[in-house]
C-alpha cells in the first residue's frame, strides 16, 4: 500500500502545474489588488482545474463503527437567532490556518472552531461520535483508520466535501509553499499517508501502531477546500485575508482589519439536523470585537455591549464582578466545575544547569516552595494544588498515588545538606565553598510576581534564594526555547493521552526548541517511553504511564503549582445555557464556537434592558455547579 503514497506527490506536482493558467474566478481577489481594510465574503473559487486523486480499493473485512446511541447534550428548546458579541485583545496577523503567524494570538481558537473534524468526542461520555465521517474502522496493521465520509457534507460555499479534499489536505501541509515546518514534520513523521478509496471513503495511515482511540483522536485531520487553495510561492501572502469556506456552522462574513471580525451562521449548514449537532451554534451572527485591554472590555461588558466576560482570576471573581448589574440580577455569575486533563502549571527545573543537575538540590527546592501558602493567601484558597504533570487524564492514564511535595523545611534542610550546602551566609542563604544557593526563576507574566515574591520569602527560610527574572514574553520564549533558563514558570497544555515522548525522552534533551525543557535524559525512562508510544494494549499503556509518571516525579524536575478545577464567567441574563449549564469537558460556558450550546433570548434581553432603564431589580444569581467536580 505504501508504494501508492510515493506516487501522490508526483501527481500533485502535476496537478499544480496544470493549474498555472489564471482561473477565471481569481480575478475578484487578484494578487495585484492592494489589501484593503475591509474584507467581505466573495467568490471562494480560485482553482480552475481541481486536483483529483486515484482511488485505491478498500481492504475486505472492515468493521464499520458509528455511534448514534449517546445522549444529546444541546438544549432542544434553544432559540436560534440573534447576535453574540465577544472580544479578542489583539487582531490576528492573518486569517490563514497554516503558515507563518497562523497559530498565535487570541483568535486562533475561534478560527479553528469553524472547521469540523472527521469524528468528535462526546463532551460527556467521551466516546467518539460522527462528525464529517459517519463511520470509521480500524485496519489490521494497527496504524490505519478508515473513514466513511458523510456525503451530505458541504463547504460553506456549497461545494461538496470529498475524499479528494482530505488527500489534498495532507499534500498541502507537506507543501513548502505554506511555510509551516511544524505541520510538515507532523505529516511526515506521524501521519504518513491519506488515501482515497472512493469519493466518500478515505483512510489515514500513521507511522506506528497506536491504540484505536488515540488514532481516532490524533488522526482526525480536517479537509482543505481544494477549490480555494492555489498553492504557489505567493500562497502565504495571498491567503492572509481571503475568507476560506468552512465545514462548521459559521464562516467569516466580514472583517475590518484591526477592528472586528464578524462570523455568520452558514445558511442551510449541512450538519444542522444531525443528532449531535442539532440545537447547537444557535446565534446567527458572532461579532468578535478587538478590545486591547481586559479592563476596558469589562467596562463594555458592564454596559451590556458584550454578552459575557471571563472571571478566571480570583481578583476578577471577587473584586471586579461586583456592583449594581450583579446585585440587581442583570448579570449572572457561574462557577462550573469540569473534568478535564489539567494543564501542567508550575516551575520547570533545567537539569543541564550544574546546580540543578544534583537531584538533592532539586528535591530541596521542591520542599522549599511554599505553594500551599501561595494558594491559601495570594490565590485566596480558590485553587487546589496540582499533583503532577499529566493529572486528570481520562481512562486512568494519571498515576493516582503521586502527591506533590509540600513545604517541609526539615526535608529541604536534609537534601540541601546532603548536597553540601551546609553553611549559611550572613543573610541566611546557604553556601557551599563560596557558592550561594541561588537560582534564577524566569517568567513572563507580571501577574506571577505576587505568587513568586511569597515563594521567595518562604524559600529564604530554607536558605534558598530565588532571583526573580520577569522577562519580556519574547525574550522569555527565546530563553526557554534555547533552554538557557534555570527555573522557568510555564504552563503546558493538555492532550487526550500523556505526551511523554516530547517532554521526557532523551532524543529531545540538550537541544533547542523541544518540549523537554528540563532536559530529562534517562535511558531507562526512554525505554519505557518507547514501549508506551508503541503499545496498543490499554492496560499495558496505563501501567507504563503510571510507571513513567513515578520516575518523573522521583526525578523532581518539575514543581507543580495549582490547577483550576472550574470555569468562572459572568454573562448577561439574556444569554441562556442548557440544563446543567455545560458539559463534563466544558472549558468555557458562554462559548458560541466550539460547543455552541448557548442561545440568546430576545424577550429576556428586552425585559432586562427595560428593567435596567427603570431601575427595577431581579434576584441576583450566582451559580455553582459541582456535577462534574472531581476534586
Amino acid at each position, binding site marked *: 500500500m505504501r508504494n501508492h503514497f510515493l506516487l501522490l506527490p508526483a501527481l500533485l506536482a502535476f496537478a499544480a502545474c496544470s493549474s498555472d493558467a489564471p482561473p477565471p474566478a481569481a480575478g475578484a481577489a487578484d494578487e495585484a489588488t492592494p489589501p484593503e481594510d475591509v474584507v467581505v465574503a466573495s467568490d471562494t473559487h480560485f482553482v480552475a482545474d481541481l486536483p483529483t486523486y486515484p482511488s485505491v480499493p478498500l481492504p475486505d473485512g472492515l468493521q464499520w463503527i458509528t455511534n448514534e446511541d449517546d445522549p444529546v447534550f444541546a438544549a432542544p428548546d434553544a432559540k436560534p437567532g440573534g447576535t453574540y458579541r465577544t472580544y479578542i485583545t489583539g487582531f490576528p496577523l492573518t486569517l490563514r490556518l497554516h503558515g507563518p503567524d497562523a497559530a498565535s494570538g487570541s483568535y486562533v481558537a475561534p478560527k479553528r472552531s469553524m472547521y469540523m473534524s472527521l469524528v468528535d468526542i462526546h463532551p460527556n461520555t467521551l466516546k467518539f461520535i460522527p462528525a464529517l465521517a459517519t463511520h470509521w474502522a480500524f485496519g489490521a496493521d494497527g496504524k490505519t483508520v478508515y473513514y466513511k465520509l458523510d456525503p451530505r457534507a458541504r463547504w460553506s460555499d456549497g461545494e461538496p466535501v470529498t475524499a479528494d479534499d482530505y488527500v489534498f489536505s495532507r499534500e498541502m501541509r507537506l507543501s513548502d509553499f505554506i511555510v509551516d515546518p511544524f505541520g510538515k514534520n507532523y505529516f511526515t513523521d506521524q501521519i504518513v499517508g491519506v488515501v482515497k478509496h472512493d469519493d466518500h471513503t478515505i483512510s489515514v495511515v500513521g507511522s506506528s501502531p497506536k491504540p484505536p482511540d488515540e488514532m481516532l483522536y490524533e488522526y482526525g485531520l480536517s479537509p482543505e477546500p481544494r477549490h480555494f487553495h492555489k498553492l504557489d510561492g505567493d500562497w502565504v501572502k495571498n491567503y492572509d485575508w481571503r475568507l476560506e469556506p468552512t465545514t462548521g456552522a459559521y464562516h467569516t462574513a466580514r472583517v475590518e482589519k484591526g477592528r472586528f471580525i464578524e462570523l455568520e451562521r452558514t445558511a442551510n449548514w449541512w450538519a444542522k439536523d444531525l443528532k449531535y449537532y442539532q440545537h447547537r451554534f444557535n446565534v446567527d451572527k458572532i461579532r468578535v470585537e478587538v478590545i486591547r485591554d481586559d479592563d476596558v472590555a469589562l467596562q463594555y461588558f458592564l454596559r451590556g455591549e458584550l454578552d459575557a466576560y471571563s472571571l478566571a482570576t480570583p481578583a476578577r471573581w*471577587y*473584586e471586579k464582578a461586583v456592583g449594581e448589574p450583579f446585585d440587581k440580577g442583570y448579570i449572572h455569575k457561574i462557577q462550573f466545575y469540569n473534568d478535564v486533563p489539567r494543564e501542567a502549571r508550575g516551575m520547570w527545573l533545567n537539569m543541564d544547569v550544574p546546580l540543578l543537575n544534583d537531584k538533592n538540590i532539586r528535591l530541596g527546592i521542591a520542599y522549599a516552595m511554599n505553594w500551599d*501558602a501561595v494558594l*491559601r*493567601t*495570594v490565590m*485566596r484558597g480558590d485553587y487546589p494544588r496540582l499533583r503532577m504533570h499529566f493529572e486528570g487524564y481520562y481512562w486512568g492514564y494519571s498515576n493516582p498515588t503521586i502527591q506533590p511535595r509540600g513545604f517541609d*523545611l526539615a526535608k529541604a*534542610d536534609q537534601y540541601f545538606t546532603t548536597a553540601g550546602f551546609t553553611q*549559611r*551566609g*550572613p*543573610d*541566611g542563604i546557604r553556601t557551599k565553598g563560596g557558592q550561594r544557593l541561588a537560582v534564577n526563576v524566569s517568567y513572563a507574566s*507580571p501577574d506571577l*510576581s*505576587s505568587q*513568586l*515574591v*511569597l515563594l*521567595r*520569602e518562604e524559600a*529564604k*527560610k*530554607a*536558605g534558598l534564594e530565588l532571583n*526573580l*527574572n*520577569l*522577562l*519580556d514574553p*519574547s*525574550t522569555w520564549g527565546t530563553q526557554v526555547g534555547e533552554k538557557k533558563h534555570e527555573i522557568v514558570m510555564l504552563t503546558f497544555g493538555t492532550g487526550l493521552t500523556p505526551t511523554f515522548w516530547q517532554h521526557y525522552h532523551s532524543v529531545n534533551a540538550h537541544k533547542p526548541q523541544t518540549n523537554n525543557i528540563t532536559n530529562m535524559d534517562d535511558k531507562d525512562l526512554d525505554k519505557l517511553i518507547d514501549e508506551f508510544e508503541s503499545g496498543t494494549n490499554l492496560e499495558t499503556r496505563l501501567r507504563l504511564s503510571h510507571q513513567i509518571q513515578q520516575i518523573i516525579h522521583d526525578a523532581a524536575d518539575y514543581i507543580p503549582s495549582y490547577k483550576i478545577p472550574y470555569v468562572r464567567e459572568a454573562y448577561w441574563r439574556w444569554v441562556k445555557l442548557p440544563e446543567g449549564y455545560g458539559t463534563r469537558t466544558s472549558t468555557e460556558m458562554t462559548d458560541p464556537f466550539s460547543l455552541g450550546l448557548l442561545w440568546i433570548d430576545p424577550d429576556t434581553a428586552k425585559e432586562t434592558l427595560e428593567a435596567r432603564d427603570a431601575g427595577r431589580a431581579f434576584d441576583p444569581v450566582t451559580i455553582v455547579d459541582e456535577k462534574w467536580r472531581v476534586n
Partner: protein
Amino acid sequence: MRFRLDPQTKKQWRRFRSIRRGYWSLLIILALLLASVFAELLVNNRALVVHYQGDYYFPTYGAYLPGTTFGLDYQYETNYRELASVLAEKRASSSASAADRGNWVVLPLVPYSAYETDFKPEAFPPYPPNFSAKHYLGTDVTGRDILARLVYGFRLAMAFAVILLFCNYVIGIALGCTMGFWGGAFDLLFQRLIEIWSNVPFLYVIMIIASVIVPNFWTLVIAMVIFGWMNMTWYMRTSTYKEKAREYVSAARALGATNTRIVFVHILPNTISIIVTFIPFSIASGVTALTALDYLGFGLPPPTPSWGELLSQGTANLRAPWIVSSVVAAMSLVLLMVAYIGEAIREAFDPKQFTFYE
C-alpha cells in the same frame, strides 16, 4: 575650605536661607535622606535590641540570627514580631522564671521589611491602613507594608538619582569645559556628535535593553548615563566660552598658568552657580525617570521596592485607594520640595540682586 570662606558664597547662602520654603525643604529632604540611610533602624523586621537570657543582641546590621538563638524551634531568621509576643507572653505567665522576666525586644517604628508578605487569616490583601497592626499606610496586593516599600523605594530612587547626577555631571562638565576651552574643530565635532546622540529615543532604547536583559540598578544607571550626559555639556560649554574671554583668564595666562590650572582654579569655580542651580532639577528628573521605568515595567526587577511599581499596583487596584494615594502623595511632596530648593538656589545665585540700575 575655599568655598566656605568665600564672601560671595556666604552671601549666597544667606540669601538662600532667607527664602524660607526652599531652606526648609532642604532641611527636610536632608533629614529624610539621612533617615533613609539608616532606614534599617526605623523600618525593619529585625529588632533593634533583644535582651534574652541576660544577653543583649543587636540584629539590625549583623548576620541573621536563627530562631533557635532565642529558644524558638526554627533554623531560619527569627521573626522578631513573633518573638516579641512570645517573650511578652512568657513574662506575663505566672510560672515565668527570673530569666524569662528579663527578656524583651525593642522593635523599630515600623516592624516590617519591604519584602516580607504579611497575611491575615480572615481577609485577603491589600489591607487598609491599620495602626494596631503597625501597617500605617496599609499593605499592597501581596501584603507587603506600603510605608516600608515607600521608604526603601525612596532611598533607592534617591541613590539612583544622585549617582546618575554625579556620573552625568562628571562627563558633562568635563566634555563641556573642554569644548568651550579648546573650541575650534574639537568643539564643532562634539557639538555635532552630541546633536546626533541626543536624537536617539532614549526611552525606547531602555525598553529594548530591558526586554533583552533583566536590568539591575547598575545597568539602569549605565544606560541612563549613556543617554543623559549631553544636557550639561551645552551649559558648560557656553559658560566656559564666556569665562575664557574674561580678563582674569588672560591675566592668569599672562602670568604663565597652565591650561589645567586655568580650567580648574579659575574657570570651574566661576561656573559653579550653573552646576548648583541644575542639581535639584537633575535629582527630580532622575527620580521620575526611575519611577516611570518601574511603572512601565522596564525598571528594576521584582521584588525591588520601588515607587513606580507601587504606582502601577495602585492604578490597577483603585479599590484600594491607600496604595495609589500613598505613593502619589510621597512623590508629589518630594518633587515639590526639590522644586522649592531649586527655586531658592536659582534665586540665591541670581546676580541681579547685585545689579543696580541707574
